[in-house]
Structures are given as structure tokens and as C-alpha cells.
């Protein structure tokens, strides 16, 4: 809780909560960033032969023609893989409902199940040569029937995996009865009003500007491996490599260098390349690097979003939901390495800020011969919110009520927290919301967008022959899931503060926000603090960066580590100054007696005192001797329970998730002739608890909304009936440029989380979550046509107009 941070310290250093400029930028704006492909200038290059078919049996692989390529070093197929490396990749998150989880082999064994599946790895002098060799390798395929489209797959005329009946990976039902014990279906039957409809959400993908990549260096003298990967979890990649290669864990280090965006796809681990490249590097005793190209990223990493939802809802005259019954068909692609997290998140987060009388949700997670589905920013929430918010709008339309009134009628009230939704969340813990103020959010949003004056604006536009509409969408986002993160903080005798945490960064500005936390907690100048993330040499235990968890879990772990350091510093200072530690304060890196500033000692000196071995390498170590009390002959120089050095390590393990929330509204204009859709205004009210750096939080929101706009209007993965991805390039997959993204107006509401010391929730994913719902609502409002699928292009809208 923020109360635990003493206001005096916050005031003095003043960086927590401030718009501090980013640490990361100096290197990134001068070309000195170190992204994966910037490393290993002399490494050999790996390239892959990937399946051109969605479903086929491999009859034969003929590499003969490639062997003459000048510069070729090695060619590997599944047959070459030893021991556990030849086994399927791990299923990361098993679940009892995932009865038929399947994962791919690092290199295809006998059958390929999507276009892009790796079949052969080639190592050569450079990437050009490696690709030359790839193009000369002949793979003889027997083509099998591809299964494309989730509904077709559910009919199971053909199977993706021979041993998975019905193509069903998982089936799960969760049911929360009404307070009076009635089931959702009973409540709907008995409700004064009922509606039933279907919603469709298309596939999209993270598409970070930098694809994946791996660079491995085997040190034969030291028998150790150093691997760089463009990953969201270097600690887990390390464990995977050690296990798959049979190396002792301390002999493997994994580093996430600068990473050019992740958005979820880089949390999956190990990618085939992440174990194949290190394996070959050790085998050949050569540095090897693989850098994913754009087409590879489209066809062989991961996608998300695609769902079909069948909704039934019962409600009263005020629009209060009495029962909700949702049945989801979720397309998980060819494999399920990440389990069923996405449909579980959809099922649970669908509830949003609302009290739903009785709820039943059922999903089937279905195999298709397409790229696997793993979390993409929002991770199932955009679909859940699309469902709930479209439902709210339909209720309002049915009753002829204001859409915001219907929402307000269903809100959880501020005095009802902690609020138990009666379900199990993605982390296996109860879905209990920690805090929030939804009525206030809505009030702020209506004011920001001008909800009440919109009818006048619409009339005005209509008088000019223009068609405009307004939409609103609300969400609650479980953030900061456990199990834990850790932080390490060390003050050295030069007064510098070195901080590390195991989770990784992909542009979120962690070096900056964590330094803000440390400067505030420890009472040191911001400039003295440096932060390292995602480097297993510095911190070995971590989970990773996903689920908007870095600020919550690592942020609090670092704060707790600072408190340990602070306590130790005050203890040593009290000794040296012959003062009571309770009378001491740290300001600007100097410990002093409150009210007597002359009685002081800098942290740098305390760092020296904390280590009985007094080096005399610098002024500080010499100066420190004046404070050193003579060691007592009957005590060891390092007392029991103590450690040398001014440093501390701590972990933060949340009891359960925090719940951030927000509400968005948009005004769109649709062209009566061309059906072009233009977003005129976009407003966001956002509550992620205490803000560490509002500038960075706003940046996260902007980026999220932009991805949401992509998902709402432009982005979809187009597969043909053969399972070919037709738009696997930036030319054809329409990511928004600056011209497509509206200016985003943002207001913050801060309801601190009572669950953690800093009072923070997470902010990383929020922006993207409600956008499809909001834009659909606004288009529907402009056009008077129900919008029940996303994305919606001008041609789609045109078709809807014709069908009206």
C-alpha cells in the first residue's frame, strides 16, 4: 500500500509517479541498441526448410543437391536429433480440461500440420547461402486433407491429429449460479426478456516489428553455453535448453537483449529454434544465429483471437442481466503448447465490471491446420469484452434505453470490493476483484467524450449529410498474475545502485520505471540507479513478461529488496553514527539523523563498511575507515545471519491477481457512399492503480489502442481452403500506419490495489482490450445495422448495407 512508503522520501526524491524520461532512449535513438540480429557478427547463419503444405505426410527428404553449396556447414532433420531433443516440445500449461493437448516436434517428424512448420535446419556461412541450400532440399510430401476454419474443424470430417477425436483439444464448462441458486439457463428461461445471437472474431497476431531470433555461443574451454534470444522469458528458455541439451543449469546462461516488441508471441518457449540453434552451436563448436524473417513470423510463430461465440442472455426491464449463457468455439491452430489459457481468459474476463445474475460458459478448443494460437496482448480478453459489450448494446437496443444506463445498472459498486465473481481465474485462483470504481470511470468517460451532447452532434452531422455514431466499451483486466518475480539491489562503494530482475523487456521502459521505484524506496538519486532485466547471469529466477505483470510483480519485488537494503544501511549507519536507526533517514544517497543533517554518512561509505574486507582501491574505501569501529574479538567479522555487502534480494508472490479496468468511447463516421470508416474521436479512462510513470502508461495505452484499431478494422489472417495463409506479408496483412490511428484522449483514475506494497496494477495490455467492441458499437450506432463480427472493412459494411 502506498501508505507504507513514507511521504518524506517520496517528496525528496520525487520520481515515483512522475513523467520521467526514459533511460532506454539514449542508446535506441543513436543506433546503439543491441537487438538480436545486431549481435554475433561472425556467427554462422541458420535457416529452415518449412512445410509448404497445411497437412502432409513426409515421405522422404533428399538433401543431396544442397551438399555442393559453397559455404554449407550442416543440415539437420528430425532423424538427427538425439534423446529428448527428438521428443515433442513441452506443453507449458497443462489443464485437466485439456484432454488432448498436442505439441510439435522441433523439426517435423512424419507429419506436418500447418504451412510453415519447420522440417529441416540448415547451417551455413551466411543467411544467403543457408537459404540457397534450403531451396535445393527436396521434401517429398503425401498431401493430406487440411482442416481449415473452426466450424469445419468442429464437424470433424477430417482430423488434424489422427488420435484426437473430433479435433477437440479441450472442452470446459464453468457455471456460476444466481444468488438464489438458479442456473444460468433457468434464469434465462424465467427472465422477462431474452436475446440470442452469434458473434465472430477473426484471427490476428502480435507482429512485433522485430521477429524472433536466437544466437548461441558454445565455450568449449568452459563447457558452457551463452544464448541470446528475442524472448519474453529468458529464465524459462534457459531451463528448457539445459533440460533438452542435458547440460548442468549453471553452464547455460540466456540473455534477452533489446527486444523489438513482443506482445505475447515471445512468451512461448522454447520455440524450436531456441533449442535447435544452441544444440547445433555446441555440436559444431561454432557460433550460430537464426533471425526470423517476416514471412517466417507470419507462418511459423503464433496467431490469436479467432472465436465463434453463441450468446443467450436474459434480463429485466432495467437491463439488469439475470442470466448469461455463452458457448465458444475457439480455434487453437495445429498445436497447444500454451494450453488453453486464451479461452479460459475469455470465459472469465467476459464478465467485466458487471454483476451477472447467473453465468454459464462453455468452450471447445479446436484443432485446425493453421499456425498455433497463443496469447496476443489481451490474451482472450478482447473476445470476451466483444461478447459482453455487444450483449449490453443489444439489451439497450431491445429496451430502448441509453447504452451507458444499461451498463451502470449492472456495475459492481465501489463498496462491494473485494468482489468475488465465483469463478476460477487463469492462475487457478479465485476470480476476486481487488478494487475499482466503475461508476466514476463511466462518469469520467461520458464527460471526456461528451456522451450527453452527442445527439446534438449527430443531428448537426446529419444536416450536413454525414453519418456518425458513438460507442462505448468497458473491461476489467486481471493483471500481475503470479507466481512470483524477484529483485536484487546492490549499492557499491562508488554510490551506484545496481538493480536486476529476471523478467524481460520489449519496450515497456522497465529500466526507467524500476529505477523510479528504487530511487524512491532507497532515497537515492535516480541517475545513480541502473537496471538490468532478462539476463540470467544477473537473476536466475523469474516467470516472464506477460499478463501486464512486470510493474506489479517485479516492481513490488524490487521495492521489497530495496527495503531490505535500506534496513541494513540504517543499521550500519546507526552503528557508525552512534544513533538510533529509527532517527535516520536517507536523502539523496546520504543517511542522516533527522533534524541533524551534519550527522550523516553516504550510502557509498556504508557499502564499504558492510564488507569487512576493506579494499583500499578508491577514496571511499579509505574514507570509510574513520567510521569503522574496532571489531570485537569475540564476534566473527561477519556476524551470524549477516552477509557482506550492501545488497538485498527479495521476491514478491501475489496472493492473487490485481484487477485493472477501463472504459473507452469512440465517435466514428461512415461514408454513406464508400462505406469508409473513420474514427473521429477516441477517449480512454484508465485505472491501473498507482501510476509509476504516467508518460509510459499513456504510451502503453496508445500502442494498445492502435493494435485494437487494427483488430477492429483491418487485421485478419486470411487462410484459403488449402490452409495457405494468403496475406503473410506487411503488404497484405494490414497493420495500421499513423494515418489509421486516431488521436487518443486519455484520463487516469487511480484506485490503488490493496494487494501489493506499491498499490499498482498492470497496464501493458489494457489499451487493446475493448477497442473492437467500441468501434463495432459506434459503427452500429451510425448505421443502425447490428455489427456482430470483427474486423469490419468498408466492403463488409457495404455488404451489410446491401443485405439490410
Amino acid at each position: 500500500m502506498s501508505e507504507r512508503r513514507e511521504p518524506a522520501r517520496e517528496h525528496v526524491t520525487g520520481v515515483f509517479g512522475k513523467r520521467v524520461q526514459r533511460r532506454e532512449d539514449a542508446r535506441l535513438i543513436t543506433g546503439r541498441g543491441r537487438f538480436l540480429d545486431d549481435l554475433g557478427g561472425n556467427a554462422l547463419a541458420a535457416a529452415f526448410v518449412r512445410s509448404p503444405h497445411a497437412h502432409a505426410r513426409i515421405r522422404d527428404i533428399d538433401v543431396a543437391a544442397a551438399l555442393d553449396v559453397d559455404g554449407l556447414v550442416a543440415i539437420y532433420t528430425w532423424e538427427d536429433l538425439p534423446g529428448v531433443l527428438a521428443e515433442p516440445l513441452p506443453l507449458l500449461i497443462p489443464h485437466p480440461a485439456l484432454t488432448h493437448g498436442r505439441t510439435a516436434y522441433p523439426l517435423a517428424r512424419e507429419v506436418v500440420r500447418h504451412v510453415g512448420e519447420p522440417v529441416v535446419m540448415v547451417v551455413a556461412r551466411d543467411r544467403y547461402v543457408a537459404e540457397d541450400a534450403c531451396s535445393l532440399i527436396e521434401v517429398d510430401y503425401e498431401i493430406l486433407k487440411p482442416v481449415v476454419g473452426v466450424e469445419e474443424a468442429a464437424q470433424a470430417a477430417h482430423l488434424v491429429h489422427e488420435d484426437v477425436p473430433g479435433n477437440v483439444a479441450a472442452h470446459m464448462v464453468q457455471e456460476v449460479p444466481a444468488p438464489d441458486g438458479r442456473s444460468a439457463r433457468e434464469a434465462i428461461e424465467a427472465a422477462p426478456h431474452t436475446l440470442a445471437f452469434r458473434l465472430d472474431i477473426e484471427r490476428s497476431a502480435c507482429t512485433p516489428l522485430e521477429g524472433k531470433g536466437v544466437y548461441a555461443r558454445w565455450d568449449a574451454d568452459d563447457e558452457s553455453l551463452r544464448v541470446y534470444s528475442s524472448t519474453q522469458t529468458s529464465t524459462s528458455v534457459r531451463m528448457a535448453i539445459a533440460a533438452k541439451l542435458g547440460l548442468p543449469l549453471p553452464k547455460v546462461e540466456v540473455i534477452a537483449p533489446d527486444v523489438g516488441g513482443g506482445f505475447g508471441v515471445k512468451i512461448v518457449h522454447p520455440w524450436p529454434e531456441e533449442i535447435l540453434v544452441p544444440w547445433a552451436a555446441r555440436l559444431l563448436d561454432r557460433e550460430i544465429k537464426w533471425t526470423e524473417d517476416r514471412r517466417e513470423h507470419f507462418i511459423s510463430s503464433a496467431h490469436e483471437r479467432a472465436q465463434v461465440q453463441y450468446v443467450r442472455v436474459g434480463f429485466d426491464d432495467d437491463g439488469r442481466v439475470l442470466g448469461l449463457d455463452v458457448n465458444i468455439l475457439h480455434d487453437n491452430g495445429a498445436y497447444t503448447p500454451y494450453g488453453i489459457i486464451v479461452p479460459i481468459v475469455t470465459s472469465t474476463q467476459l464478465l467485466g465490471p458487471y454483476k451477472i445474475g447467473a453465468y454459464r460458459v462453455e468452450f471447445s478448443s479446436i484443432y485446425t491446420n493453421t499456425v498455433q494460437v497463443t496469447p496476443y496482448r489481451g490474451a482472450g480478453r478482447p473476445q470476451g469484452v466483444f461478447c459482453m459489450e455487444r450483449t449490453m448494446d443489444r439489451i439497450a437496443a431491445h429496451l430502448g434505453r441509453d447504452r451507458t444506463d444499461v451498463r451502470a445498472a449492472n456495475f459492481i459498486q465501489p463498496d462491494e470490493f473485494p468482489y468475488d465473481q465465483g469463478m476460477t481465474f487463469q492462475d487457478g485462483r479465485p476470480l476476486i476483484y481487488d478494487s475499482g470504481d466503475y461508476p466514476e470511470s463511466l462518469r469520467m468517460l461520458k464527460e471526456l467524450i461528451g456522451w450527453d451532447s452527442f445527439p446534438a452532434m449527430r443531428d448537426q452531422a446529419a444536416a450536413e449529410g454525414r453519418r456518425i455514431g458513438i460507442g462505448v466499451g468497458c473491461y476489467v483486466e486481471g493483471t500481475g498474475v503470479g507466481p512470483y518475480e524477484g529483485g536484487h539491489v546492490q549499492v557499491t562503494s562508488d554510490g551506484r545502485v545496481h538493480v536486476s530482475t529476471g523478467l524481460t523487456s520489449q519496450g515497456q521502459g522497465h529500466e526507467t520505471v524500476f529505477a523510479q521505484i528504487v530511487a524512491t524506496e532507497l532515497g537515492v538519486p535516480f541517475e545513480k540507479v541502473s537496471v538490468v532485466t532478462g539476463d540470467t547471469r544477473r537473476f536466475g529466477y523469474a516467470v516472464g513478461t506477460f499478463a501486464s505483470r512486470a510493474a506489479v510483480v517485479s516492481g513490488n519485488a524490487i521495492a521489497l529488496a530495496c527495503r531490505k537494503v535500506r534496513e541494513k544501511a540504517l543499521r550500519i549507519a546507526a552503528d557508525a553514527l552512534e544513533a538510533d536507526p529509527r532517527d535516520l533517514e536517507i536523502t539523496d544517497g546520504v543517511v542522516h539523523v533527522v533534524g541533524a543533517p551534519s550527522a550523516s554518512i553516504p550510502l557509498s561509505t556504508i557499502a564499504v563498511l558492510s564488507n569487512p574486507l576493506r579494499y583500499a582501491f578508491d577514496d571511499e574505501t579509505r574514507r570509510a575507515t574513520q567510521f569503522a569501529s574496532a571489531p570485537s574479538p569475540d564476534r566473527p567479522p561477519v556476524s551470524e545471519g549477516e552477509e557482506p555487502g550492501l545488497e538485498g534480494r527479495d521476491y514478491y508472490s501475489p496472493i492473487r491477481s490485481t484487477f485493472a479496468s477501463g472504459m473507452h468511447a469512440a465517435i466514428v463516421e461512415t461514408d454513406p457512399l464508400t462505406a469508409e470508416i473513420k474514427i473521429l474521436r477516441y477517449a480512454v479512462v484508465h485505472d491501473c492503480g498507482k501510476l509509476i510513470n504516467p508518460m509510459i502508461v499513456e504510451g502503453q495505452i496508445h500502442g494498445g489502442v492502435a493494435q485494437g484499431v487494427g483488430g477492429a478494422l483491418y487485421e485478419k489472417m486470411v487462410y484459403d481452403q488449402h490452409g495457405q495463409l494468403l496475406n503473410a506479408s506487411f503488404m497484405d496483412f494490414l497493420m495500421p500506419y499513423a494515418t489509421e490511428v486516431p488521436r487518443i484522449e486519455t484520463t487516469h483514475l487511480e484506485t490503488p490495489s490493496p494487494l501489493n506494497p506499491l498499490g499498482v496494477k498492470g497496464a501493458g495490455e489494457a489499451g487493446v482490450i475493448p477497442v473492437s467492441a467500441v468501434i463495432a458499437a459506434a459503427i452500429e450506432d451510425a448505421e443502425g445495422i447490428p455489427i456482430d463480427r470483427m474486423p469490419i472493412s468498408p466492403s463488409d459494411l457495404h455488404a451489410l448495407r446491401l443485405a439490410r
Partner: protein
Amino acid sequence: MNHHITLVVNGVVREASVPARRLLSDCLRHDLGLTGTHVGCEHGVCGACTVLLDGEPVRSCLTFAVTVDGREITTVEGLATGGELSPVQRAFAECHGLQCGFCTPGFLCTATAFLRDNPAPDDEEVLEAISGNLCRCTGYQNIIKAVHRAAEIQAEEAG
């Protein structure tokens, strides 16, 4: 067969021996070690690989190195002068115009050339100028702000 080429990169004469098919982006990154120029698509759409060729922005992933023999190239590494950041670089940091920073070199080069030709652009012109570059992180709002801010800094310093 390799070709011997000479480029003037960031004011320095650089030589390389490259096959005809070597992309300029690869030549800069791998032959000359200037890894500040990034590659996001290699099909000319994202703009991450943008460099200035005789002052004009080009996509180095769509350019063969051998075709620019003898020409002058400015990459992101050459935008600062004598250790001092250019107005565009400063503005991007000040306005939080970057997150992961992968697209940033392309935006910086594009904006540098744009503001040289149009030192006082309006909103529409800024939007137009950067509308050929993709960024997946920022939502562009702060990039737009940064370009305006850079124009301002440039004007202040000229004045």
C-alpha cells in the same frame, strides 16, 4: 562473384566486397557493422530500414549495395553531430516517441529528411511524412508529437 564498392557512410569512406545480391541493409549491418539500421520486413513496407541516400530517404532493404557504389549514405548512427543529438533525436526521447525502438531508426531518418525540406510542417504534412513507416508499439501519437517538437527545436536553434 564479389564486387568491390566504396560508400561514404556518415561522412566516412567505407569499402566492402559484396555479391551482387547483397542488400544495402545487410551490407550496412553485416559488412560495415552499422547495426542501427533495422530490418522489419525486407519487402519495403515497414520503413525500419530507411537510410538517407545522398540525403533522400530510401529503403535499404529494397536497394542492392552494388547499385549505390560511390554514393553518400547517412544512417541513424550519423544523425548526431560531434556527440550532440540532433533535434529529431532529442524530440523523440522528450516526447516518448519510441518504446521498443526497433522502428525508430527509420522514423528518425525519415523525419530528418522531411524537416530539412519542410522545417515548419502542419499536422497533415507530418502525418503524411511518417505514414510510410510502421510502428507496432507507440500508436504513433507520440511520434507525431516528436516530429512537431523537432521542428520547434530546430527553429529555436536556428533562431
